[in-house]
C-alpha cells in the first residue's frame, strides 16, 4: 500500500470517486462527509495524508485544517475545491498550513499526479506523522 488517505467531502459521489481512484493507485482510503467526523476519525486512526474539501457544511475545510494543525503540524493535508484555481483561496490555505491545493476543475489524471506529488514533497520534508 502506497498511502493511507482520509477523504473529506460532503458529496457522496465525489467521496466514492476518490476512494475508487485511490484504490487503483494502490492507496487505502477512508471517507467521511464533515469536518467534525474527520477530526473524530483522526483521533482514532493515523493517516499518511488528508484530502480535505474547502467548502463543507458546518465546520469549513479551513477550520478543520486549523484544528489539525493545532495538534499535528506534520500530517500532510491537501485541500480540494470546486472553486478552481483561486489565488486568494490558495494564499489562505497556505497560511493555514496546507501541503497542497487541488482544483476539481483539473483533469482527473492531473489531479492524481499532483496529489501524489504534494504528498511526496511533504513526506520528503519530513512532515509525516509516519
Amino acid at each position, binding site marked *: 500500500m502506497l498511502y493511507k488517505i482520509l477523504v473529506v467531502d460532503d*458529496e457522496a*459521489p*465525489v467521496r466514492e*470517486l476518490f476512494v*475508487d*481512484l485511490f484504490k*487503483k493507485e494502490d492507496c487505502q482510503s477512508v471517507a467521511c462527509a464533515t469536518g467534525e467526523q474527520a477530526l473524530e476519525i483522526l483521533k482514532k486512526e493515523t493517516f499518511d495524508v488528508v484530502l480535505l474539501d474547502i*467548502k463543507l457544511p458546518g465546520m469549513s475545510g479551513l477550520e478543520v485544517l486549523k484544528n489539525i494543525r493545532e495538534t499535528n503540524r506534520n500530517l500532510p493535508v491537501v485541500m480540494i*475545491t*470546486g*472553486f*478552481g*484555481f*483561486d*489565488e*486568494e483561496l490558495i*494564499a489562505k490555505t497556505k497560511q493555514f498550513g496546507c501541503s497542497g491545493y487541488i*482544483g*476539481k*476543475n483539473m*483533469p*482527473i*489524471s492531473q489531479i492524481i499526479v499532483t496529489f501524489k506529488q504534494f504528498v511526496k514533497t511533504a513526506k520528503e520534508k519530513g512532515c509525516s506523522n509516519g
Partner: protein
Amino acid sequence: MDSDIKEILPKLIEDAGVMVLYLDKQENILLCNKKTQELTGLKDTDIVGKNWLKVLFRNSGNNIKKAMFKAVMDDSTTYKRVKDFECHILDSSGKNRLISWSINPILDKDNELQASTLFGHDITEIKGRGASIKNINDSLKNIFSSIKEYALYVINPDGKITYVGMGCQAMLGWDKKDIIFKHVNILHDIDGQGSNLDFILKQVRLSGKYETETELVTKDKEIIPVILTVNRFLDPSGKLVGFIFIAKDMTERKKLEYQIFQAEKLAALGQLSAGMAHEINNPLFVISGRLEMLKQEELDQKVRDSLDLISSQTDRIRNLVDRILRFSRKSTTALEPIDINEAIEAVLPWVQYNKLPSAEVILEKSFTKNMPKIKGDLHQLQEVFLNLLINAYQSMPNGGKIKIITSKLDDHYAQIQIIDSGVGIPAHHLKNIFMPFFSTKKEGLGLGLSICHNIIKNHNGSIELTSKVNQGASFTIKLPFI
C-alpha cells in the same frame, strides 16, 4: 400774493438744483445761479459778462464745444430750442460731469434772437446707475451664455420657437438664427419619426406645468438626455401665449448612473457565477472522473468513441466554468513590479500562434523606453494583452495592421494602446462590449473582454474602447505606476 411770488422767484432760481443761466443776444452770460457757480467752481463775478461757451466749457476740448454749438444752432445763424441735450463739462475739481441741457432762445417778432435761458441738469449719478444696470445686464448675459447644463426656449401656441435663451448655443449648439421661428420639433424630433411634444403640451395645458425625462437633438445631430420642464406662458390677461421650456442636460449623470449600474451588475454576476461554477464543478468532476476510469477498461470501440465524445464535451463545460471563475475572481494577489513593455513582448509569440494562417498582419510596436514599472499580477495582465491582441487578429480575417503603443500618460499612469485596422464594432454594441457573455463573434463565449475589464479594474486602472464599423478598434488601457 403776486408780490410774494415775485420775491420767491429769484430765490427759487438761486437755490435750484439745476444750473440756470440767462444769456444776452451776444451769448454773454447776464445771470447765473448758485448751482452754476458750484459746478464751474467760479464766482458769479467771473461768470457774468463772459461768453457762455467759454465759461462753461473752459476746460473742455474743442470737440465738446463744437458739439454743443451744433446742438444749439440749426445752421450757423439760427438758434433752436434744445431739450435734454447731454454733454459733459469738467467741474471745479476736474471731474467729468454729464449735464442734460435745455436751451430756450427768446426771439423777437422778426425772429431775431434777443436772449436765451439755459438749464443744465447734472445727471452724472443717474447715468452712473444706468451704467451699473447695463453692467449687471452684461454680466447676467455672460453668466447665462456660459451655462451649459440648461437650455431655455419659448414657443408660441403653434409650436414656433419665439425665444432662444441661454444654453441653446452652449448645450445644444444651436445659434439663435438656426432655430428662431422654426417649429420646436427641430429640437425634439430625435429620429425623424416625430416627437412626444403633443403629449407634453397637452399635459401643460391641463396642469400648467409638466416635467419629464426626454431627449433633445443638438445641431450636430447628437442626442442628449435631458430633464425637461415646460411651463405655460400667459399674458397679463391670462391668455395662453406660449410655452416656456427649460431642459437640463443629464448626459454626465446618465453616464455615471450607467457606470454604477454596470459595476453593480458585474459584481452581482461575478458572485452568481462563482457560486454557479462551484456547483457545476462538483458533478462535472465526478462525471469526468468516472469517465476516465471507465476508459481504462476493456471496451467495445463504439462505446469508447461515445465515451471520448462525452469526455470532449465535459472538457468544454470545464473550460467554460473555468472562464466564468476567472471572470468572477475578485482580486489580484501575486503583485510584483512589472515592466509593461517586457510583459507585452512576452505574449507576442503566443499571439502569433493564434492568428489565422492566411491573413497577412503587420505588427507595429511603438514602446516608450525607460517607463516606470507598474505593480500588478503579471499573469493576469498578460492574459489581458493576449486577449486584446488575439481579438485584434481575429477582427482582420483579410489581414491588416496592429499597432501597440506604450507611453507615459503622466507621472502617475502608463498608457497602453492596441489599435487594429479590422472590421470594427458597431456603435450599438460598444456599451455592452465589456459585459460578460456578450460577444460579436459567433463562437465567442463573451467572457474575454469582461475578464480583461475585471483584471484592469482590480489593478486600479481603466480600459476603454473606441471603434467604428470598418475603421478598426482601439483599446486604451491606463495602469498606475508603482
